[in-house]
Protein backbone atom coordinates (compact mmCIF):
# COMPACT_ATOMS: atom_id res chain seq x y z
CA UNK A 1 0.00 0.00 0.00
CA UNK A 2 2.20 2.80 -1.27
CA UNK A 3 -0.02 5.82 -1.33
CA UNK A 4 2.48 8.09 -3.02
CA UNK A 5 4.38 7.98 -6.31
CA UNK A 6 7.89 6.53 -6.06
CA UNK A 7 10.35 9.08 -4.69
CA UNK A 8 12.58 10.89 -7.15
CA UNK A 9 15.25 12.45 -4.99
CA UNK A 10 17.16 13.62 -8.09
CA UNK A 11 20.73 13.36 -9.23
CA UNK A 12 22.93 15.42 -6.97
CA UNK A 13 26.68 15.85 -7.30
CA UNK A 14 27.27 13.97 -4.04
CA UNK A 15 25.10 11.11 -5.25
CA UNK A 16 26.90 10.83 -8.59
CA UNK A 17 30.31 10.88 -6.92
CA UNK A 18 29.19 8.27 -4.40
CA UNK A 19 28.12 6.06 -7.28
CA UNK A 20 31.29 6.78 -9.26
CA UNK A 21 33.48 5.79 -6.32
CA UNK A 22 31.83 2.37 -6.24
CA UNK A 23 31.95 1.83 -10.00
CA UNK A 24 35.52 3.08 -10.38
CA UNK A 25 36.62 0.84 -7.50
CA UNK A 26 35.32 -2.18 -9.39
CA UNK A 27 36.68 -0.74 -12.66
CA UNK A 28 40.20 -0.61 -11.21
CA UNK A 29 39.97 -4.28 -10.29
CA UNK A 30 38.87 -5.04 -13.84
CA UNK A 31 41.82 -3.14 -15.35
CA UNK A 32 44.22 -4.98 -13.06
CA UNK A 33 42.67 -8.35 -13.85
CA UNK A 34 42.90 -7.84 -17.61
CA UNK A 35 46.45 -6.49 -17.22
CA UNK A 36 47.80 -9.37 -15.18
CA UNK A 37 46.07 -12.06 -17.25
CA UNK A 38 47.30 -10.67 -20.55
CA UNK A 39 50.82 -10.22 -19.19
CA UNK A 40 50.96 -13.88 -18.15
CA UNK A 41 49.70 -14.92 -21.58
CA UNK A 42 52.31 -12.71 -23.27
CA UNK A 43 55.09 -14.48 -21.39
CA UNK A 44 55.50 -12.60 -18.12
CA UNK A 45 55.88 -15.85 -16.25
CA UNK A 46 59.38 -16.38 -17.58
CA UNK A 47 60.36 -12.86 -18.59
CA UNK A 48 59.24 -10.51 -15.79
CA UNK A 49 60.08 -10.35 -12.12
CA UNK A 50 57.27 -9.91 -9.61
CA UNK A 51 57.76 -6.16 -9.09
CA UNK A 52 57.65 -5.43 -12.80
CA UNK A 53 54.58 -7.60 -13.27
CA UNK A 54 52.73 -5.76 -10.51
CA UNK A 55 53.68 -2.35 -11.90
CA UNK A 56 52.40 -3.44 -15.30
CA UNK A 57 49.22 -4.87 -13.76
CA UNK A 58 48.10 -1.59 -12.28
CA UNK A 59 49.42 0.61 -15.10
CA UNK A 60 50.01 -1.34 -18.32
CA UNK A 61 52.59 1.02 -19.78
CA UNK A 62 55.39 -0.48 -21.89
CA UNK A 63 57.91 1.65 -20.01
CA UNK A 64 57.50 -0.72 -17.07
CA UNK A 65 58.61 -3.76 -19.03
CA UNK A 66 60.97 -2.18 -21.57
CA UNK A 67 64.07 -3.05 -19.56
CA UNK A 68 63.00 -6.61 -18.80
CA UNK A 69 64.12 -7.93 -22.15
CA UNK A 70 60.66 -8.72 -23.50
CA UNK A 71 59.91 -8.10 -27.14
CA UNK A 72 57.59 -5.07 -27.06
CA UNK A 73 56.25 -5.94 -30.50
CA UNK A 74 54.61 -9.07 -29.11
CA UNK A 75 51.55 -7.18 -27.86
CA UNK A 76 52.96 -5.04 -25.04
CA UNK A 77 52.20 -1.82 -26.90
CA UNK A 78 48.78 -1.27 -28.43
CA UNK A 79 45.69 0.89 -28.47
CA UNK A 80 44.07 -1.54 -26.02
CA UNK A 81 46.81 -0.88 -23.47
CA UNK A 82 46.51 2.85 -24.02
CA UNK A 83 42.79 2.60 -23.30
CA UNK A 84 43.51 0.47 -20.22
CA UNK A 85 46.07 2.99 -18.99
CA UNK A 86 43.56 5.74 -19.62
CA UNK A 87 40.96 3.95 -17.54
CA UNK A 88 43.43 3.29 -14.74
CA UNK A 89 44.35 6.97 -14.70
CA UNK A 90 40.84 8.40 -14.91
CA UNK A 91 39.38 5.96 -12.37
CA UNK A 92 42.37 6.05 -10.04
CA UNK A 93 42.98 9.79 -9.97
CA UNK A 94 39.30 10.74 -9.76
CA UNK A 95 38.62 8.09 -7.12
CA UNK A 96 41.56 9.28 -5.04
CA UNK A 97 40.90 12.99 -5.46
CA UNK A 98 37.24 12.61 -4.55
CA UNK A 99 38.25 10.59 -1.51
CA UNK A 100 40.58 13.39 -0.48
CA UNK A 101 37.80 15.94 -1.04
CA UNK A 102 35.45 13.87 1.09
CA UNK A 103 37.83 13.58 3.99
CA UNK A 104 38.80 17.25 3.89
CA UNK A 105 35.19 18.38 3.63
CA UNK A 106 34.32 16.21 6.62
CA UNK A 107 36.57 18.44 8.67
CA UNK A 108 35.89 21.83 7.09
CA UNK A 109 32.68 23.54 8.09
CA UNK A 110 33.54 26.98 6.78
CA UNK A 111 31.93 27.53 3.36
CA UNK A 112 34.75 29.71 2.01
CA UNK A 113 37.53 27.34 3.03
CA UNK A 114 35.56 24.49 1.58
CA UNK A 115 35.35 26.26 -1.78
CA UNK A 116 39.08 27.00 -1.77
CA UNK A 117 39.87 23.35 -1.00
CA UNK A 118 37.53 22.21 -3.74
CA UNK A 119 39.23 24.47 -6.31
CA UNK A 120 42.70 23.25 -5.26
CA UNK A 121 41.57 19.64 -5.60
CA UNK A 122 40.11 20.25 -9.06
CA UNK A 123 43.37 21.92 -10.16
CA UNK A 124 45.42 19.01 -8.79
CA UNK A 125 43.07 16.59 -10.53
CA UNK A 126 43.56 18.34 -13.88
CA UNK A 127 47.33 18.44 -13.36
CA UNK A 128 47.53 14.72 -12.59
CA UNK A 129 45.35 13.80 -15.55
CA UNK A 130 47.38 16.03 -17.86
CA UNK A 131 50.69 14.54 -16.74
CA UNK A 132 49.42 10.98 -16.92
CA UNK A 133 47.86 11.38 -20.34
CA UNK A 134 51.05 12.84 -21.74
CA UNK A 135 52.66 9.56 -20.71
CA UNK A 136 49.81 7.40 -22.00
CA UNK A 137 49.64 9.07 -25.40
CA UNK A 138 53.38 8.69 -25.95
CA UNK A 139 53.26 4.94 -25.26
CA UNK A 140 53.57 3.89 -28.90
CA UNK A 141 56.10 1.79 -30.77
Amino acid at each position, binding site marked *: *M*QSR*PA*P*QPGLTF*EYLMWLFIRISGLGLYLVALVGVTAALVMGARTQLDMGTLIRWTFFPNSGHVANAGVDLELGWVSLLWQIMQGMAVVFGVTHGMNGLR*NILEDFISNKGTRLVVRVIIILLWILFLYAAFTLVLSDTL
Partner: protein
Amino acid sequence: MEITLKVFRYNPEKDAKWHYETYVIEGQPTDRVLDLLEYVKGYIDGTLSFRRSCAHGVCGSDAMRINGRNRLACKALVRDVGTKITVEPLIGLKVIKDLIVDMEPFFDNYKKILPFLINETPPPADGKERYQSPEDRAIFDDTTKCILCACCTTSCPSFWANDDYVGPAAIVNAHRFIFDSRDEAANERLKVLNSMFGVYRCHTIFNCTEACPREIQVTKAIGEVKMAILRGKIK
Protein backbone atom coordinates in the same frame (compact mmCIF):
# COMPACT_ATOMS: atom_id res chain seq x y z
CA MET B 1 32.60 -3.46 47.08
CA GLU B 2 34.67 -0.35 46.61
CA ILE B 3 34.14 1.62 43.44
CA THR B 4 36.38 4.35 42.08
CA LEU B 5 34.25 6.79 40.15
CA LYS B 6 36.10 9.40 38.13
CA VAL B 7 33.79 12.10 36.88
CA PHE B 8 34.31 14.91 34.39
CA ARG B 9 33.51 18.21 36.08
CA TYR B 10 33.08 21.64 34.55
CA ASN B 11 31.24 24.63 35.88
CA PRO B 12 31.47 27.49 33.36
CA GLU B 13 30.61 30.04 36.08
CA LYS B 14 33.56 29.11 38.27
CA ASP B 15 36.08 26.95 36.44
CA ALA B 16 38.45 28.29 33.82
CA LYS B 17 38.97 24.72 32.68
CA TRP B 18 37.37 21.33 33.14
CA HIS B 19 38.88 18.72 35.45
CA TYR B 20 38.21 15.26 36.80
CA GLU B 21 36.96 14.54 40.30
CA THR B 22 37.43 11.09 41.80
CA TYR B 23 34.99 9.62 44.30
CA VAL B 24 35.60 6.35 46.13
CA ILE B 25 32.25 4.91 47.14
CA GLU B 26 30.62 1.68 48.21
CA GLY B 27 28.46 -0.13 45.69
CA GLN B 28 27.07 -3.41 44.44
CA PRO B 29 27.81 -5.25 41.21
CA THR B 30 24.15 -4.79 40.31
CA ASP B 31 24.24 -1.03 40.84
CA ARG B 32 23.84 1.07 37.76
CA VAL B 33 26.25 3.87 36.99
CA LEU B 34 23.28 6.19 37.38
CA ASP B 35 22.87 4.99 41.00
CA LEU B 36 26.48 5.89 41.69
CA LEU B 37 26.02 9.35 40.22
CA GLU B 38 22.85 9.82 42.28
CA TYR B 39 24.78 8.78 45.36
CA VAL B 40 27.51 11.32 44.71
CA LYS B 41 24.95 14.04 44.04
CA GLY B 42 22.88 13.13 47.09
CA TYR B 43 25.59 12.54 49.68
CA ILE B 44 28.92 13.94 48.53
CA ASP B 45 28.57 16.88 46.17
CA GLY B 46 25.16 18.31 45.33
CA THR B 47 26.59 20.45 42.54
CA LEU B 48 27.21 17.46 40.28
CA SER B 49 24.95 17.91 37.24
CA PHE B 50 23.63 15.30 34.85
CA ARG B 51 20.39 14.63 33.02
CA ARG B 52 18.15 11.71 33.89
CA SER B 53 14.48 11.09 33.94
CA CYS B 54 13.01 7.60 33.56
CA ALA B 55 16.03 5.68 34.92
CA HIS B 56 14.87 2.69 32.89
CA GLY B 57 16.42 3.15 29.47
CA VAL B 58 13.37 4.63 27.83
CA CYS B 59 13.64 8.41 27.83
CA GLY B 60 17.18 8.77 26.48
CA SER B 61 18.23 11.53 28.88
CA ASP B 62 21.30 10.05 30.50
CA ALA B 63 23.55 9.17 27.57
CA MET B 64 27.18 9.71 28.54
CA ARG B 65 30.62 8.31 27.96
CA ILE B 66 31.29 5.50 30.43
CA ASN B 67 34.78 4.07 30.27
CA GLY B 68 35.15 5.56 26.83
CA ARG B 69 31.94 4.17 25.39
CA ASN B 70 28.64 5.92 24.83
CA ARG B 71 26.03 4.31 27.03
CA LEU B 72 22.96 5.12 29.11
CA ALA B 73 24.03 5.46 32.74
CA CYS B 74 20.77 3.79 33.75
CA LYS B 75 21.54 0.69 31.68
CA ALA B 76 25.22 0.27 32.56
CA LEU B 77 25.77 -2.03 35.54
CA VAL B 78 28.89 -2.00 37.66
CA ARG B 79 29.11 -5.73 36.92
CA ASP B 80 29.59 -4.93 33.22
CA VAL B 81 31.80 -1.85 33.36
CA GLY B 82 34.10 -2.77 36.27
CA THR B 83 34.90 -1.05 39.55
CA LYS B 84 37.08 1.65 38.03
CA ILE B 85 34.63 3.84 36.19
CA THR B 86 35.26 7.02 34.25
CA VAL B 87 32.25 9.09 33.34
CA GLU B 88 32.46 11.89 30.77
CA PRO B 89 29.98 13.93 28.73
CA LEU B 90 29.19 12.95 25.14
CA ILE B 91 31.68 14.28 22.63
CA GLY B 92 30.86 16.38 19.60
CA LEU B 93 28.38 18.55 21.50
CA LYS B 94 29.23 21.54 23.70
CA VAL B 95 29.41 20.92 27.43
CA ILE B 96 27.01 23.12 29.38
CA LYS B 97 27.92 21.82 32.84
CA ASP B 98 29.53 18.60 34.07
CA LEU B 99 27.84 15.77 32.17
CA ILE B 100 25.23 17.94 30.48
CA VAL B 101 25.79 18.78 26.83
CA ASP B 102 23.97 21.17 24.54
CA MET B 103 21.60 18.96 22.53
CA GLU B 104 20.38 21.78 20.26
CA PRO B 105 22.59 20.92 17.23
CA PHE B 106 21.46 17.31 17.58
CA PHE B 107 17.78 18.22 17.52
CA ASP B 108 18.30 20.77 14.74
CA ASN B 109 19.56 17.92 12.58
CA TYR B 110 16.68 15.75 13.71
CA LYS B 111 14.17 18.39 12.62
CA LYS B 112 15.69 18.56 9.13
CA ILE B 113 14.32 15.15 8.19
CA LEU B 114 10.66 15.95 9.06
CA PRO B 115 10.31 13.45 11.91
CA PHE B 116 6.52 13.13 11.84
CA LEU B 117 3.94 11.24 9.80
CA ILE B 118 2.89 13.08 6.65
CA ASN B 119 -0.20 11.85 4.89
CA GLU B 120 -2.41 14.16 2.84
CA THR B 121 -4.93 11.56 1.73
CA PRO B 122 -8.22 11.76 3.63
CA PRO B 123 -8.58 8.99 6.23
CA PRO B 124 -10.60 5.88 5.29
CA ALA B 125 -14.39 6.22 5.01
CA ASP B 126 -15.03 4.87 8.50
CA GLY B 127 -12.80 7.67 9.76
CA LYS B 128 -10.68 5.32 11.84
CA GLU B 129 -7.36 3.63 11.09
CA ARG B 130 -5.06 3.61 8.10
CA TYR B 131 -4.34 -0.09 7.93
CA GLN B 132 -0.86 -1.50 7.58
CA SER B 133 0.05 -5.14 7.13
CA PRO B 134 2.37 -6.77 9.67
CA GLU B 135 4.89 -7.28 6.82
CA ASP B 136 4.86 -3.57 5.97
CA ARG B 137 5.29 -2.74 9.64
CA ALA B 138 8.22 -5.14 9.98
CA ILE B 139 10.25 -3.21 7.37
CA PHE B 140 10.89 -0.28 9.71
CA ASP B 141 10.37 -2.02 13.04
CA ASP B 142 14.01 -1.69 14.06
CA THR B 143 14.18 2.07 13.62
CA THR B 144 11.02 2.71 15.68
CA LYS B 145 13.07 1.77 18.75
CA CYS B 146 15.08 5.01 18.75
CA ILE B 147 14.86 7.04 21.96
CA LEU B 148 16.94 10.01 20.68
CA CYS B 149 19.61 9.64 23.34
CA ALA B 150 22.32 10.78 20.87
CA CYS B 151 24.67 7.89 21.68
CA CYS B 152 25.02 7.05 17.98
CA THR B 153 25.42 10.54 16.57
CA THR B 154 28.01 11.51 19.18
CA SER B 155 30.01 8.35 18.49
CA CYS B 156 30.30 9.17 14.79
CA PRO B 157 33.66 10.61 13.66
CA SER B 158 31.97 12.36 10.73
CA PHE B 159 29.72 14.17 13.20
CA TRP B 160 32.63 15.01 15.51
CA ALA B 161 34.35 16.60 12.55
CA ASN B 162 31.35 18.54 11.37
CA ASP B 163 28.00 18.97 13.06
CA ASP B 164 26.36 20.04 9.81
CA TYR B 165 26.18 16.31 9.08
CA VAL B 166 22.64 15.21 9.96
CA GLY B 167 24.10 12.22 11.81
CA PRO B 168 23.00 8.63 12.35
CA ALA B 169 20.11 9.39 14.72
CA ALA B 170 18.43 11.70 12.20
CA ILE B 171 18.88 9.12 9.44
CA VAL B 172 17.43 6.38 11.65
CA ASN B 173 14.36 8.52 12.26
CA ALA B 174 14.11 9.39 8.57
CA HIS B 175 14.25 5.64 7.86
CA ARG B 176 11.39 5.10 10.30
CA PHE B 177 9.10 7.29 8.14
CA ILE B 178 10.58 6.70 4.67
CA PHE B 179 9.79 3.00 4.90
CA ASP B 180 6.40 3.46 6.58
CA SER B 181 3.68 2.56 4.06
CA ARG B 182 1.30 5.10 5.61
CA ASP B 183 3.70 7.99 5.11
CA GLU B 184 3.74 10.05 1.92
CA ALA B 185 6.80 12.24 2.25
CA ALA B 186 9.62 9.80 1.55
CA ASN B 187 10.59 11.95 -1.40
CA GLU B 188 11.13 15.09 0.66
CA ARG B 189 13.15 13.22 3.28
CA LEU B 190 15.32 11.51 0.70
CA LYS B 191 15.96 14.89 -0.87
CA VAL B 192 17.39 16.15 2.42
CA LEU B 193 19.50 13.02 2.83
CA ASN B 194 20.74 13.12 -0.79
CA SER B 195 22.64 16.34 -0.14
CA MET B 196 26.14 17.21 0.91
CA PHE B 197 25.34 16.77 4.62
CA GLY B 198 23.10 13.77 4.16
CA VAL B 199 23.95 10.10 3.95
CA TYR B 200 27.20 10.56 1.99
CA ARG B 201 29.08 11.81 5.04
CA CYS B 202 28.56 8.30 6.43
CA HIS B 203 31.71 6.31 5.75
CA THR B 204 30.35 3.06 7.18
CA ILE B 205 32.42 3.25 10.35
CA PHE B 206 29.88 1.29 12.44
CA ASN B 207 30.51 3.24 15.68
CA CYS B 208 26.81 4.11 15.76
CA THR B 209 25.67 0.49 15.64
CA GLU B 210 28.17 -0.30 18.39
CA ALA B 211 26.94 2.58 20.56
CA CYS B 212 23.17 2.18 20.29
CA PRO B 213 21.75 1.17 23.71
CA ARG B 214 18.62 -0.09 21.97
CA GLU B 215 20.58 -2.34 19.64
CA ILE B 216 19.25 -0.70 16.50
CA GLN B 217 21.17 -1.75 13.39
CA VAL B 218 21.99 1.89 12.65
CA THR B 219 24.55 1.40 9.88
CA LYS B 220 22.21 -1.05 8.16
CA ALA B 221 19.39 1.50 8.27
CA ILE B 222 21.68 4.12 6.75
CA GLY B 223 22.62 1.60 4.05
CA GLU B 224 18.95 1.04 3.27
CA VAL B 225 18.41 4.76 2.90
CA LYS B 226 21.41 4.94 0.54
CA MET B 227 19.90 2.10 -1.49
CA ALA B 228 16.53 3.88 -1.61
CA ILE B 229 18.25 6.93 -3.07
CA LEU B 230 20.24 4.77 -5.49
CA ARG B 231 17.23 2.85 -6.77
CA GLY B 232 14.84 5.79 -6.71
CA LYS B 233 12.25 3.70 -4.94
CA ILE B 234 11.68 2.32 -1.48
CA LYS B 235 10.50 -1.20 -2.19
